[in-house]
């Protein structure tokens, strides 16, 4: 099928340093103009602008009509630059983009809101700035007001709004944009949990309506829910394009490498404090076939060694398990009681058929007499692989965090 967005060899170069920095004055410009030829003489024919940076380099991709494409990457990777080029805010240095549809971008909610104007007035102003026609705003006005739940405050200047109300109104306008291509930056990370939920709901409505959406987010679960395909941008270049689950997984794997063993042999410098220090943390497979790879069918254990400084306190340990997306999976605690002074060991056994495939991170906490004395986050990171594509006729990622084998009774099975 013919793409609705086609980007080829897109690049954006910024000059860093004094030359093109903001707020340069005429005088600086004049002195620079005088100095530049002199410098060129001094340094021969060498390029003067060595202090440039490619915020985006050689990015090529197609987006099909109706696709919802996620754009992920760590901070400063070039996601925002890509969005700015696509939404025509800044001009690319190289390359070309062809857009076969009306485009609107939402890099911020409430762009152009004026604090002195009322809610009603700002709906019109903001709508026009986002590219809506007046007749279009007229016809959607009631829906926008309904969505914002602010009908009582429509004639109040928005400077008297709470930040939550402001965001609600702003998002309500944005949510009623109807371009063929919509570019959305991290705008869902605002407002209270309830409103966020509403926004996500609206976003997935948009996604199912057949609109083409490019969606930048740090929220991996949002990306996974909304996007069919995902682009991973790393240091200005496109590192991977493909099916969302795979790209997100690769990105997370890159962001937090497998960390299945850590040791600190010297108790004097080991992490911890005068109560307790951590000497080692290790993930150990318990499978018979000596393979260290953990799958959802492999039982394994987490072993911790501590240096304990007191034997007269009630001590216990808590292990916190998170998915790499930050979902809290579980917490589990050891027996409570005094431990011997010196080297002590704690082992947690994790059964097979319990965790689903995914990347997990482990935090360990030491508690003495009911008071937390030390917490070490992300002491281990590990991946549970998908053991079997044997979930019957199902292919792809098995949903959920846990994957227990529960007993089914099917008396009518023929």
């Amino acid at each position: 099928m013919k793409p609705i967005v086609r980007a080829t060899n897109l690049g954006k170069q910024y000059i860093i340093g004094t030359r093109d920095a903001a707020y340069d004055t005429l005088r600086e410009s004049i002195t620079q103009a005088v100095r530049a030829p002199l410098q060129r003489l001094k340094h021969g024919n060498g390029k003067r602008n060595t202090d440039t940076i490619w915020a985006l380099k050689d990015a090529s991709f197609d987006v099909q009509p109706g696709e919802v494409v996620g754009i992920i990457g760590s901070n400063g990777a070039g996601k925002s630059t890509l969005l700015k080029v696509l939404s025509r805010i800044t001009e690319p240095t190289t390359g070309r983009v062809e857009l076969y549809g009306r485009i609107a971008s939402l890099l911020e909610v409430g762009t152009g809101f004026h604090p002195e104007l009322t809610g009603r007035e700002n709906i019109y102003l903001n709508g026009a700035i986002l590219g809506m026609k007046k007749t279009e705003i007229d016809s959607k006005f009631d829906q926008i007001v309904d969505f914002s739940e602010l009908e009582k405050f429509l004639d109040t200047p928005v400077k008297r709004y709470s930040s939550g109300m402001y965001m609600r109104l702003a998002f309500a306008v944005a949510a009623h944009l109807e371009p063929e291509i919509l570019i959305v930056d991290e705008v869902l990370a605002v407002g209270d949990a309830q409103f966020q939920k509403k926004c996500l709901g609206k976003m997935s409505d948009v996604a199912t309506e057949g609109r083409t959406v490019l969606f930048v987010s740090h929220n991996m679960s949002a990306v996974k829910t909304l996007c069919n395909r995902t682009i991973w941008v790393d240091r200005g270049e496109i590192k991977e394009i493909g099916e969302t689950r795979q790209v997100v997984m690769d990105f997370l794997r890159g962001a937090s490498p497998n960390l299945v063993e850590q040791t600190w042999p010297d108790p004097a410098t080991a992490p911890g404090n005068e109560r307790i220090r951590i000497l080692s943390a290790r993930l150990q497979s318990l499978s018979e076939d000596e393979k260290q790879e953990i799958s959802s069918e492999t039982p394994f254990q987490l072993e911790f060694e501590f240096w304990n400084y007191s034997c007269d306190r009630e001590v216990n340990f808590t292990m916190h398990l998170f998915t790499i997306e930050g979902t809290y999976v579980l917490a589990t605690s050891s027996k409570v009681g005094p431990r011997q002074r010196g080297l002590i060991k704690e082992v947690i056994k994790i059964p097979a058929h319990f965790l689903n495939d995914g990347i997990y991170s482990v935090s360990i906490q030491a508690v003495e007499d009911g008071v937390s004395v030390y917490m070490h986050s992300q002491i281990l990171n590990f991946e549970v692989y998908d053991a079997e594509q044997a979930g019957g006729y199902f292919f792809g990622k098995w949903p959920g965090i846990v994957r227990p084998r529960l007993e089914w009774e099917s008396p009518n099975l023929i």
Partner: protein
Amino acid sequence: MGISSTNNETAPISTANPTRKRTLENHQGPPEGLPEEPLVVIEPNGGWSALDLRDLWAYRELLYFLTWRDVKVRYKQTELGIAWAIIQPLFTMLVFTLFFGRLAGVPSDNVPYPIFAFTGLLAWTFFSNAITTSGNSLVGSAHLITKVYFPRMIIPGAAVAAGLVDFAIAFVILVLLMIYYGVGFTWSMLMFPVMVLLTTLLALGTGMWLSALNVKYRDVRFALPFMVQLWMYLSPIIYPTSFLPAKLRSLLLLNPMTGIIEGYRSSLFGRPFNWIALAVSAVITLLLLIYSSYAFRRMEKSFADIV
């Protein structure tokens, strides 16, 4: 005219515009039939690029809304509100009448000094406010420029348009003054809208260029008030051009506001037009407008990066 009669038998549409039929057929194809040609092509555009009038036209409603916002916001939380649009030129006129008209005895071409001065001040207040607000408009709209696309010219354009609203209000005072001083209707008054148009275009040309320059060189912000003040003394607002020695008078013609302000007075008070002065103003205005729209387009590309 040499088309034979066979053409008359076929449907007029297909002969008149064969391409139109083809595109119609295409639309009956797949439901989400994308246009053949991209709606927008984004690519680096070195140097000069043409004025995209179609794009400007598509965003005309934004111009309206930004103008409306500027007018609305300007007098918010003021006690006197839009009356400020009148107070500014009115009080300046009173002071000028007292000091220049009465005490210094500056001549006013046989027109009562108060309306002579007020006419000049009306035009000048519009012009100077327009170039000052539009000159600072882009920098003041940094939050828009870095977040959303639209033709950037709309920003200084809206600032000038908002000035027109103030002008219209202060114009009512001029009409009242003219009635009071018994100035009668003449056909030359039909030239008044032309003068307004010229002032608007000149303000647009100047303001657009200054606003773009201001993005990169914040010196503009400091130079502007100073420049506006000097420019006022070099324009025939307090005095008529006839007050000056001939040599200076022709030099002053290089200031496009000279011809325009004299033109305002000629149109209202039925005095002969100085067509040469007007032609010079019109040519300078047009050249400036062309130059600054191209300069603006050239600098526009980097606005979001440096503002």
